[in-house]
C-alpha cells in the first residue's frame, strides 16, 4: 500500500510539473504586464519599464526559454515564486492567503459533508415521504441558487436580525474587526466567530446540497441491493441493516467526492471570499489575472494543482480505507 502510494505521488508530481509549466507558458504569452506601465500618466521611461519587468522576470523582450530557466531556478533553488509586476513577493502573499482560505472553508466543508451524507441517507430511507419531498425541494433550490445569491441573501437576513437584537450579532466584513475590540475575555475569538458564521453557513449549505443529492442516490441503490435483504433475513432490524450494510457500502463513492471537493473549495470559494471580504486564494486567482500578475497566476495554478493532487491521493486513501476490494488488489 505504501509503495503503491509513493508510486502514485511520484506520478502526480510529474503531472503537476507539466501542468504548471504549461500554465506558465500560457500566462507568459497571454498576459501583458507592460501595458500596466505604458498607460501610466505621467508616462514612464521605456527603459525603466523594461527594468521593472525584467526584475519580475516577465519582460517579453527576454527569450521565453531564458525566462523559463530563471523561473525554474528561482523555484527549485530558492523556493522563490517570483514577484508581481509591482515588485511584491508572490510567495509571501500566497502563504498568507492559504491560511485565510483554510480557516474559511474547513469548517464549512466538513460540516457540509457530514450533514449532506446524513440528510442524503435519511431522505433515501424515507423516499417519497413528505419529509423527503420537502428536503429534496429545498436542496434543489439550494443547488440551483448561485452561491453569490445565497451569500447576499444571508447578509440581508443577518442585517435584519442584527437590527432586531439591537447589536452587531453577525459580522460580515473580513476575518476580524479592525480597530479596538471590546474588553472581555476571549474577545478576539468571539469576534472571529462572529465573522465566520455567515460564510461558513453559505459553504455548508453549498456542500450539503451537493452531497445530499449524491448520497441519496447512492443510498437508494444500496437499499435496494440484495445484501441489505440478506442482512434483514439474518434478523437485523431495519435501522441496523440500513446503517451497517447499506450506508457503509454507499459511502465508498462519497469518499472520492469528499476528497476532491476539498481541493476545489480551497481555490474555488471565490464568490464567498468576495462577498464576505476574505482575502483568500479564490479571489486572489481572479485578481492576478486582471492585474497581469504572471507569477501570481502561475503560483495560484500550482497551488490549485497541488490541492487537486492531494485531493486525488486523499481519495485513493479514502477508497482503499472504505472498500476492501480496492485494498487487496
Amino acid at each position, binding site marked *: 500500500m505504501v509503495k503503491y502510494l509513493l508510486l502514485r505521488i511520484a506520478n502526480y508530481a510529474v503531472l503537476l510539473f507539466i501542468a504548471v509549466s504549461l500554465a506558465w507558458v500560457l500566462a507568459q504569452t497571454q498576459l501583458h504586464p507592460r501595458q500596466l506601465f505604458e498607460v501610466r500618466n505621467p508616462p514612464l521611461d521605456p527603459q525603466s519599464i523594461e527594468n521593472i519587468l525584467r526584475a519580475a522576470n516577465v519582460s517579453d523582450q527576454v527569450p521565453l526559454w531564458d525566462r523559463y530557466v530563471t523561473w525554474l531556478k528561482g523555484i527549485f533553488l530558492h523556493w522563490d515564486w517570483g514577484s508581481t509586476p509591482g515588485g511584491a513577493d508572490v510567495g509571501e502573499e500566497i502563504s498568507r492567503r492559504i491560511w485565510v482560505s483554510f480557516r474559511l472553508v474547513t469548517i464549512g466543508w466538513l460540516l457540509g459533508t457530514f450533514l449532506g451524507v446524513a440528510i442524503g441517507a435519511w431522505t433515501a430511507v424515507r423516499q417519497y415521504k413528505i419529509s423527503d419531498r420537502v428536503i429534496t425541494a429545498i436542496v434543489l433550490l439550494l443547488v440551483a441558487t448561485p452561491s453569490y445569491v445565497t451569500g447576499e441573501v444571508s447578509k440581508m437576513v443577518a442585517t435584519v436580525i442584527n437590527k432586531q437584537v439591537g447589536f452587531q450579532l453577525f459580522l460580515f466584513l473580513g476575518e476580524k474587526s479592525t480597530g479596538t475590540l471590546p474588553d472581555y475575555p476571549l474577545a478576539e475569538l468571539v469576534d472571529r466567530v462572529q465573522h465566520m458564521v455567515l460564510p461558513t453557513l453559505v459553504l455548508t449549505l453549498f456542500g450539503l446540497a451537493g452531497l445530499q443529492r449524491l448520497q441519496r442516490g447512492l443510498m437508494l441503490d444500496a437499499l435496494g441491493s440484495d*445484501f441489505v435483504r*440478506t442482512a434483514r433475513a439474518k434478523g437485523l*432490524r431495519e435501522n441496523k441493516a440500513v446503517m451497517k450494510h447499506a450506508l457503509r*457500502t454507499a459511502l*465508498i463513492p462519497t469518499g472520492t467526492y469528499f476528497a476532491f471537493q476539498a481541493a476545489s473549495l480551497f481555490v474555488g470559494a471565490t464568490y464567498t471570499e468576495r462577498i464576505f471580504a476574505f482575502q483568500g486564494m479564490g479571489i486572489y486567482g481572479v485578481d492576478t489575472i486582471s492585474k497581469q500578475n504572471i507569477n501570481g497566476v502561475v503560483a495560484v495554478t500550482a497551488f490549485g494543482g497541488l490541492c487537486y493532487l492531494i485531493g486525488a491521493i486523499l481519495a485513493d486513501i479514502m477508497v482503499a480505507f472504505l472498500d476492501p476490494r480496492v485494498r487487496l488488489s
Partner: protein
Amino acid sequence: MTATAPFRNTRQTAAGDVVLSVHDLHVTFPSEAGPVRAVRGLSFDLKAGETMAIVGESGSGKSVTSLAIMGLHPRTARITGSVTLHGKELLGLTDAEMSEIRGEDLAMIFQDPLSALTPVYTVGDQIVEAIQTHHSISRSKAWQRAVELLDLVGIPNPDLRVKSFPHEFSGGMRQRAMIAQAIANDPDVIIADEPTTALDVTIQAQVLEVLKTAQRETGAAVIMITHDLGVVAGMSDRVTVMYAGRPVEQGSVDDIFYAPRMPYTIGLLGAVPRLDATNKEPLATLKGNPPSVVNLPPGCPFVPRCPLAHSGCREREPELETVGPDHVAACWENERIRTDSLTSADIFPTQVLAPVEKAVVEKVDQEVVLSLENMKKHYPLMKGAVLRRRVGTVYAVDGIDLTLHRGETLGLVGESGCGKSTTLLEILNLHAPTEGRIVVFGNDTASLKRADKKRMRRDLQVVFQDPMASLDPRMPIFDIIAEPLGVHGWSKEKTEARVMELLKTVGLEEGHANRYPQAFSGGQRQRVGIARALALEPELIVLDEPVSALDVSIQAGVINLLEELKQRLNLSYLFVAHDLAVIRHIADRVAVMYLGKIVEIGSVEEVYNRPSHPYTQALLSAIPIPDPTTERSRTRILLRGDLPSPANPPSGCKFRTRCPLFEGLTAEQRTPCLEAMPPLVTAPAGEPVALESSGVPQRVTTTVPEGGVETDHVVACYYARPVKVL
C-alpha cells in the same frame, strides 16, 4: 458439524409435525395499471425436516411468497391470510418481533450469490453477525463457529478463508458461505430462492449436496423455490406448482411427476428437454405466455394456453380439488385427465416434423462449412496505467480443432470460463486467431479482405443469449429485422416483403412489426433475434446460449423453432450451451470444452451413452433429471473446487486438478497426466462400465483416428474409458 454443539437441542416442533403453515395467502401490490395480485390463495403445511418445492415460471409468485413469509416484502404490499410458525401467527408482527424470528427460526438463501453478501465485510464477519444478532456469545466463540460452519459447507482451509471478503470467493463458494450463514442458528425452516440458478452445473451439484448436508445436520424443513424441474425431482418430498399467482397443483413429488392432473404441470414436464431422452421428438410447447397478474380476467388463467379449455373454464376459476391422497389440482378437467390418462403429447399436439435425416455416415463427403485448426486465442494480461506491461496471458482458447458440416448441429458445452464464447467470437470476428486457422466456407479468415468479410457475414449469422440486451430498445422490430438487409443493399419493397415473411417464419404476427422490443416477452424477443439472423438467408448460424434466459415453457417453443428452421432451410448450427439436455435434444455432434481445450467430441449418442472423459462424465452426472425415481437412484460424480483460472492453467492435463480419476491413480500412473495434455484419440471400445464398479483405470492404447478427429468419437484422456452415467 459433529464438533459443533447446536445452539438448540430441543426443537419446538417434533419431526413429522407441521412446522410452518401457510393458509390462504394473498399478496397484492398497488400499481398504476391496477392492483398486481402476485399471490392469490396459497396454502400449504410444511412438516419438520421435509423439503417442499415451489415451481413456476417468472412472475408466478414464487419469490413474492418467500418474501411474504419472511416479512421482507415491499411495504406497499397488502398481505392477507395466515402464516404460522410453530403455531404462532407471523403476519401482523412488528419488524422488531419478526427480526427475532428471521435468521433464528426462519432462514433464507437468495438466488444471486454475487450480490447477496455485503462486499465490505469479511465472510466471517457476516456469519458472526448472524450468530450474534440472536445469541449473546463472545466474538471469539462466534468466530470459531463461523469457521466450523464454513468447514461444514465445504470451504477448503476455513480458518484462513473465513477472513476473506466476498469478492475473493467464486460464485459457488459464496453460495456455500450463504448457506453457512443461513444455518448458523439451526433454523427450523430454510427458504432457498433459486439457490443454484446462477451457478454452473458442476457447482450446482456441489451446492445442492451441501444444502442436503445442511438440512441433515440441522433437521430443518426446506422450501425450495425453483424453475428447474430436475432440481425439484432430486431435492424435494412435496411440490407446489404455481401459475399466475395461484397454486394449481400440489402433491408428493411422485404424484406431480408421474400422475400430474393439471394441464400446466403436464405441459411443463413435457417441455423440458431431458438428458436421458433417446428419441428426438419435438418438445411439448405451451403456446403464448404466462398472463399478467394485473386485471386478470375471470376464469382459469391458463385458459389461453390450454388445449383442453372449454367455455366453463372461462367463467369460473377452478378451486384446488382433492384428486388423490395428499394431492390436489385446480382443473375442471382433472377427472378426464385421469380416466383418459392424458399425457403431454395428447394434450399439447406438436407439429410433426419430417424425419431427421441421419446423415452421420456420409458426413465425410459433405461440404465443410466451418473448420477450426489448432485455433488459439490468448489475451494478454496487462498492468499499469501509463507504462503498460504484459504480466501474463489468459489462455482463453488453447488449440482446438472443430469441423462443422452443412446441415449439421454441433453443440459446444462446458462451464463458464471454459472458452466457449471466445470460440464463437473468434469465428464471428473473421480475423486470424492468435495461432492456428479458422476456415469459414473454405476461406481462411487470415486472408480475408474487407469486402470478402462483408460478403461472408451474410452467410454467417449469430443469435445471442440475452434477448433483451441484443435488441435495440429504441427500434421497432421491423427496423431491427430489416437492418441487415439495409446493410447489404436490399431495396425497400423487397425488404418489406422479406421482413413480413420472416416474422411469419419465426411465428410472430405481421401486425407486430411496428412494436418495440419491450412490448414482447422473452421468448418472442428471442424469435425476433432469430428472424434477424435469418434475414440474409445465412448458411451457418452460431448460437450463444439462445434459450438459457427463457422460461421452460417458452424455451421449448424456441428449440422446436430452431430445429424446424434448420431442416427447412438446411442450416448449420454451432450451438453453445451449458445445458447438456438442450444439446442432447438439438445437436448431432457435441464437443466438450474444458479450460480452452476440447476434451471429448463425438456424436451425441456416443458421447451421452459412452462418455469416456472423466470431465464429461462429471458434467453429465451433475445435471439433474426431471424424474424423481431416476434422481433418487443416481450417483453423482462431484468435482472438487472451481474451474482453475485460464491465466494460470495447471501443467500437463488441464483437468488433473479436479479429476476424480487422477485422485485414484498411483504416483507412477500419474506421470503422463503431469507431463503433457493428452492428445485426442479414438475413445476405447467396449460396453460402458457402471460408475461404482469402474475398477483400476487402464492406459488407453488407441491412437488418433486416420480420418481426422471430426469423424469419430475422440477423447483426450490417458485413462479414458466409457462409463455409464445415465
